[in-house]
């Protein structure tokens, strides 16, 4: 239940302790003021802001915590630097870990913030907090970014569900991400590349028969609608249409071409990223691709030596594919974890959780390609530039998608709720 309320402009670690301790004091007052100030906001019609309805999101979630030191913010030859070298990238003067050779060649296509400073250092609290953009506690459970986008932007014209989550493990309809928005803004999860339950026509019904029986169904619905209110029937028709849109896209679940697998990597992440790209091409509004197993408390360096090339390959392949197809113009791509890893190397040759100084990479619509911002100190322990909390990124991404994050609210049972932490604001240096 706890949450911090204090604004976080400079993100000194000492203030974290302070704000936690002062939870019932100054922070609460700040939140009360913030709340009072909401009254003046008007709720604009989000749909009208959506000049370009085709904007989409690819959200790559690296669960467990990718080490910034073995990826975006290497500190070779320093106290905590670890064994890996850094390599030059396509942007002169910008170096990343040698574990990302493919990414280094598309660096000019990316934007990178190395000055990320967030709060929770536990998975159980950090994962939801980061995914929700760390809103202030207003007594409701905020939606994850995917559910937020599904609600604010709706499904695309494709008729496919707005939020699809490609992941290892179980699939199905996952409502938990939706928070107060309600289950319908949850994710349709594709687990292990398997289609969702009942998506395939059974053998006893062929396509023609399915068309026939649905014509009968539609006839019956037309009869009923003649004298009945529209609301319930429309909602009911919509879910049948969405179901059919999914059924027609069964090819999305076909075994991918060998040459595609070769480029993306024959790994869970490579295969899921490939499905993710197909989902975007098919018109899904928000695709989350999930990689697990990054919590390297032990043997961090061997683990990253094994994990990073898989990320490097799949990430580069998807960015190149989207670029080649002209899709980066309307797809926002984000790659991130719930936190970074400690510069200090522990007794198990591992790195622990470190929310105080880490990196987030992004590209695509609304994002300034080649913007490399944010700095950490020599040993990578603290952010020395202006620190950015997850709330700043939510503002930035909403704006990249054309949503005015500072003047748009959810209305939950009459309660106006800002869509992003109202102590934060968009990071202009990252926006195109």
């Amino acid at each position, binding site marked *: 239940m706890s949450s911090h309320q204090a604004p976080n402009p400079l993100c000194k670690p000492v203030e974290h302790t302070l704000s936690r301790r002062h*939870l*019932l004091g100054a922070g*609460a007052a700040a939140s*009360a003021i913030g*709340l009072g100030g909401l009254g003046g906001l008007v709720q604009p019609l989000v749909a009208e802001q959506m000049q370009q309805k085709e904007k989409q999101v690819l959200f790559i979630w690296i669960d467990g915590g990718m080490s910034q030191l073995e990826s975006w913010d290497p500190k070779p030859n320093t106290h905590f630097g670890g064994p890996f070298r850094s390599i030059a990238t396509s942007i002169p003067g910008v170096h990343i870990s040698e574990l990302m050779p493919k990414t280094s060649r598309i660096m000019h296509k990316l934007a990178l913030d190395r000055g990320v400073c967030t709060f929770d250092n536990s998975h*159980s609290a950090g994962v939801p907090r980061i995914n929700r953009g760390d809103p202030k506690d207003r*007594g409701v459970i905020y939606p994850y970014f995917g559910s937020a986008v599904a609600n604010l932007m709706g499904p695309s014209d494709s008729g496919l*569900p707005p939020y699809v989550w490609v992941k290892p493990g179980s699939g199905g*309809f996952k*409502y*938990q991400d939706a928070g107060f928005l*309600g*289950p*319908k803004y949850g994710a*349709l999860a594709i687990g292990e590349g398997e289609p*969702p*339950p*009942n*998506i*395939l*026509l*059974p053998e*006893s*019904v062929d396509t023609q*028969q*399915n068309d*026939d*029986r*649905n014509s*009968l*169904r539609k*006839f*019956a*619905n037309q*009869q*009923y*609608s003649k*004298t*009945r*209110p529209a609301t*319930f*029937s429309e*909602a*009911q*028709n*919509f*879910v*049948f249409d*969405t*179901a*059919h849109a*999914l*059924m027609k896209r069964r090819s999305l679940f076909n075994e991918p071409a060998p040459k595609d697998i070769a480029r993306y990597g024959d790994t869970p992440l490579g295969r899921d990223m490939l499905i993710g790209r197909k989902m975007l091409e098919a018109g899904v509004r928000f695709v989350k691709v999930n990689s697990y197993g990054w919590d390297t408390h032990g043997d961090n360096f061997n683990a990253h030596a094994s994990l990073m090339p898989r990320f490097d390959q799949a990430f580069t392949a998807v960015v190149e594919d989207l670029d080649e197809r002209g899709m980066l113009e309307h797809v926002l791509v984000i790659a991130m974890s719930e936190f970074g890893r400690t510069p200090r190397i522990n007794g198990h040759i591992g790195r622990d959780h470190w929310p105080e100084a880490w990196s987030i990479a992004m590209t695509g619509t609304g994002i300034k390609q080649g913007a490399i911002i944010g700095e950490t100190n020599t040993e990578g322990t603290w952010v020395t530039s202006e620190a950015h909390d997850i709330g700043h990124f939510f503002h930035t991404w909403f704006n990249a998608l054309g949503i005015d994050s500072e003047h748009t609210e959810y209305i939950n*049972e*009459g*309660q106006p709720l800002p869509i992003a932490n109202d102590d934060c604001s968009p990071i202009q240096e990252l926006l195109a």
Partner: protein
Amino acid sequence: MKIYPLLAVLCCFCSIQPLVAQQLHELIDQHIEQASPEPFAAESTDSEFLRRIYLDLIGQIPNTSETLEFLSDTATDRRSRLIDKLLEDSRYSRRMSEFFNVMLMERRGIDPDWQLFLTSSFNKNMAWDKMVQHMVSPDTSNETTRGSAYFLTKRLEKYGQNPTDFPGLARDIGRMFLGMDLACAQCHDHLFIDDYKQADFQGLFAFINNSFIRSDTDYPAIGMKPVKVRLEFNSVFEEGNFSTGPKLPGLSEIPIPEFIGGEEFAVEPNKETKAPGIPKFNPLDFLAKQLPTATNESFNLNAANRIWYLMMGRGIVHPMDLHHSDNPPSHPQLLSLMGQQLADNNYDIKWCIRQIALSRTYQRTGTITPSVANAKRHEYRVFSEKPLSAEQLMWSMLTATGQLNLIPPQTTTVGSDSTETQQEQLGESIDGIRTDFLDAYANPPREPETEFAPSVRGALFVLNGPRVLSWLPAKPGNLADLLNKQDREYADTLYLAILSRKPTLEETNYFNQYIGSHSDKTKAIEQAIWALLASNEFAINH
């Protein structure tokens, strides 16, 4: 002689109360109709009423012979007779158990002892205040009712990585029994609802924050640690430390008695049986005494409101758990009257349901005509559509397809091993079917099922899921079998079995033509059955 009709006419226009006390259903109609100057919809047709009352009272559509029987009844009292018949039907207690289980437990799970408590309570028409007493202060010595503890214990079970949700339990006692969702008043007085104070939440919290799930029983049971001190709390907005003992909103605080150390227990904990001690002071005893009482107006209003919702698909206070001065009842006098009468009639749920069912308000058509096109749901000028619950869909699809006849009757309540085994041997059990329907249509745990939220999941289930599709092909005694044996008038059979009405001329022509001219009649019949099962008219109680 001529004066009588004149008097009768006069009485219709004047507001003199008749000498005989009016029945509640008449008062309902007066209040509803006086509240709006706009026109009201006409009475429902007999088939509309028939389907609606079956779904509401016994949780499923009528079968064809039940439909034909009612539609051929021309007596003027046929509707009230049907209401009384269904209230005495054995399926009434099943329906009420299902409805109250969904409402009270919000899909947290299922428990055989809890099921037994619910079905036996509705079977005996146990009074609502007694049921609530059982839920907040369960009697472990009564094997039939002790499953009532599930209301408390299930909410104290840990789920995911969350800590034991004592605040959630306190919140739900307020929501379910007082119509007050005090969740936002946990840490401070409610920001938008002036009536909801932090002290109200904390007072409720103090009843249950020392409770725990007993681990020494194989049925749901709640234990209580000795309560020695008042509950301390802070506000995130106000300076200072506050404290409260157990206290219901609007009532006085229950003093916490002091005991000499070691004398807190009436029955000491038993280390051998692991039975926890029974403290001399148990706040739940007081909750059971103070909460469900005629003098507790919030309790009465909430009970009336929830029974109204059961029949009308919307609370007079809506949402049902946000009763406060800024979210007033749509018909305050009516709600207050119903709450009072419910208390006066010993919280007789069946009586209250019967009164609502008898009202013109309930029996109005759901058909939209120009005069009611602008009707708002809370005006009750036209009957509002209600989605079928997962259970209503299950029983209705089983009934419509005739599959229900092919499953051995479930003679006992859920959890009886012998019948389950028998059913499994025959290939299909109600429990297995229920699991599929809940997976497809029920809300996730802890989500109230009060708003209509059709899902892609449900659509895919009916489109492609093997369960319902397996009920379509002809088997001796089912609907397709019957249709296969016909050579005309398919539409009549289809519509009576699935939509509980006769088809219109257009519908008759359409379906007779489709089946009659199809090269594969068997397939065409399956298609037609499926189409009506998947139709909006079927999925909605109207």
